[in-house]
């Protein structure tokens, strides 16, 4: 049951080493036009209560009708998580009172979710990888939003989000560090984005994590856990886990006991605190929603969706390693976003895969990151980058010139080949021209020539001078060979 404990992942307390055990419930907003049970729009950022139907506002006599696309999206996600798809599932009501919950209950799935057990393969730095078990995925409604800062004694309730479809993806407590937890969420997000079932936009709240954290001495049974609600960035997930684990360790090492409770992470203060409002013993009185029949579909329906799934990151990564000879690390970087992987494939097509990976990862991603741009906003297209790589391969330009060329294409655009032509950036391979330059430098610097015979490292200075004299266009190999011969360096 207990996987071997990796000592590197333990947290040092004052007295002992502690193992942190983490499980996650991710709420992922389904990508759909309309809500789970009503025809109101899911678009973000509307006027208050604009994207609200009478169903979402729980007017008397209103009834839910399920959105078939949301069902398909949940099944696609289940397939992407290699999970069991339940051909029959049931919607239950989770009853509680809250101003942003108009019906007085959330329609969710309790005993019979649409998706059962699955798994996610998570790559960690240094080549390690873990498999995180998925316990279930169920469909449910999102709640509305309360604004608390509009008036001193009032909260303002907006139901635009009320009824938007969510997938709650529950992991097993298989994570053992904040790094693992962050990597898991990152990977899950990647899968969802590949599938097109959730845009993963954490800033808009479209992906939120409830993080269950407990600590134990290695080898001991699971400790009491606390649930940190609604953490909305991957960085905060890491911080919340670290903070909460240390809080629990301090209590336990002090001889105290952990109280199972719901907590909130306050990134400003770097602490988690008890959510008193949620502390009241909840009794959700789940029961099957009598307004809805059981959700049933055929294996054919599932097979049809499976046939339409895109290649997922794990498969793509394996293919990149096999077909393009990439390192698993580079392949992993490229497949982290479907758009990046597609870009890379377009660049690598018919070219050297490793060279393409170097250019995409080091030059392009580096530059995009610096500018805060996404791959889909790249000023350099896959075709343009491919041409640059071709020009290097042909020997038309040197690697160094290629970087200048990349800069020019980034800023001014244009066909790289034409740019090279127009700006005279072609590499000089004509040894005659290079030799003339070399001879001139040797003639002008007799002292250095003498020194170079004693100190061969001075060769670099001569190379630099020659490159300068040729405007950087001289073929570096040719320059080297000529200088060595003329200076008599072996």
């Amino acid at each position, binding site marked *: 049951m207990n996987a071997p404990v990796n000592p590197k992942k333990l947290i040092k307390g004052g007295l002992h080493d502690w193992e942190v055990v983490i499980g996650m419930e991710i709420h992922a907003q389904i990508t*759909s*036009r*309309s809500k789970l049970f*009503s*025809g*109101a*729009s899911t678009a973000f950022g509307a*006027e*208050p*209560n*604009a*994207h*609200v*139907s*009478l*169903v*979402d*506002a729980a007017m008397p006599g209103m009834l839910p*009708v*399920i*959105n*078939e*696309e*949301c*069902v398909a999206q949940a099944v696609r996600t289940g397939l992407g998580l290699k999970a069991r798809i339940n051909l029959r599932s*049931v919607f239950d009501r989770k009853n509680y*009172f*809250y*101003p942003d919950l108009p019906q007085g209950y959330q329609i969710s799935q309790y005993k019979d979710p649409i998706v059962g057990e699955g798994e996610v393969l998570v790559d960690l730095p240094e080549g390690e990888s873990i498999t995180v078990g998925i316990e279930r995925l169920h469909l449910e409604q999102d709640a509305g939003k*309360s*604004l*608390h800062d*509009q*008036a*001193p*004694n*009032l*909260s*303002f*309730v*907006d*139901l635009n989000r009320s009824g938007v479809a969510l997938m709650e993806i529950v992991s097993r407590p298989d994570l053992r560090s904040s790094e693992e937890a962050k990597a898991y969420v990152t990977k899950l997000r990647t899968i969802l984005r590949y599938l097109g079932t959730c845009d993963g936009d954490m800033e808009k709240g479209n992906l939120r994590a409830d993080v269950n954290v407990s600590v134990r001495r290695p080898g001991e049974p699971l400790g009491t856990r606390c649930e940190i609600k609604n953490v909305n960035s991957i960085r905060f997930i890491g911080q919340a886990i670290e903070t909460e684990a240390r809080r629990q360790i301090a209590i336990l090492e002090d001889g105290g006991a952990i109280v199972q409770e719901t907590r*909130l992470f306050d990134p400003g203060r770097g602490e988690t605190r008890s*959510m*008193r*409002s*949620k502390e009241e013993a909840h*009794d959700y*009185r789940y029961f*099957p929603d009598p307004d*809805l*029949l*059981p*959700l*049933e579909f055929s294996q054919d329906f599932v097979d049809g969706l499976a046939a339409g799934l895109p290649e997922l990151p794990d498969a793509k990564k394996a293919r990149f390693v096999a077909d393009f000879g990439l390192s698993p690390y580079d392949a992993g970087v490229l497949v982290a976003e479907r758009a990046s992987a597609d870009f890379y494939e377009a660049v690598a097509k018919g070219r050297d895969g490793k060279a393409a990976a170097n250019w995409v990862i080091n030059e392009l991603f580096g530059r995009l990151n610096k500018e805060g741009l996404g791959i889909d906003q790249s000023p350099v297209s896959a075709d343009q980058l491919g041409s640059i790589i071709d020009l290097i391969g042909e020997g038309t330009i040197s690697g160094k010139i290629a970087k200048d060329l990349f800069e020019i294409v980034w800023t001014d655009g244009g066909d790289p080949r034409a740019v090279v032509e127009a700006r005279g950036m072609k590499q000089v391979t004509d040894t005659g021209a290079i030799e003339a330059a070399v001879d001139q430098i040797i003639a002008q610097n007799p002292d250095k020539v003498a020194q170079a015979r004693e100190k061969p490292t001075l060769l670099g200075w001569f190379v630099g001078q020659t490159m300068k004299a040729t405007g950087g266009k001289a073929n570096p190999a040719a320059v080297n060979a000529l200088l060595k011969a003329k200076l008599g360096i072996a």
Partner: protein
Amino acid sequence: MSVDAQTVRRIAHLARIAVSDEEVAPLQGELNAILAFVEQLGTVDVSGVEPMTSVTPMAMKKRADVVTDGERAADVVANAPETEDNYFLVPKVVE
């Protein structure tokens, strides 16, 4: 099974219905009368019986994913006791 006064108060709170001290005893009596009445169900052999989830056997109708509703904030808040700028207002909720 029967309920005591404390359970009556707990249930009332769960149902968000204020009950005065005087109401507790009569409610307790009425609830216990009903619970006594339903007690006889305990004698039925229900082993192997599926609980009913839908009284009419049919497939659940589904909607296409099309925006067909909303954009009627004025209707949504028309009956609300307290609103501002089409928001519903409630006493401040502390999280």
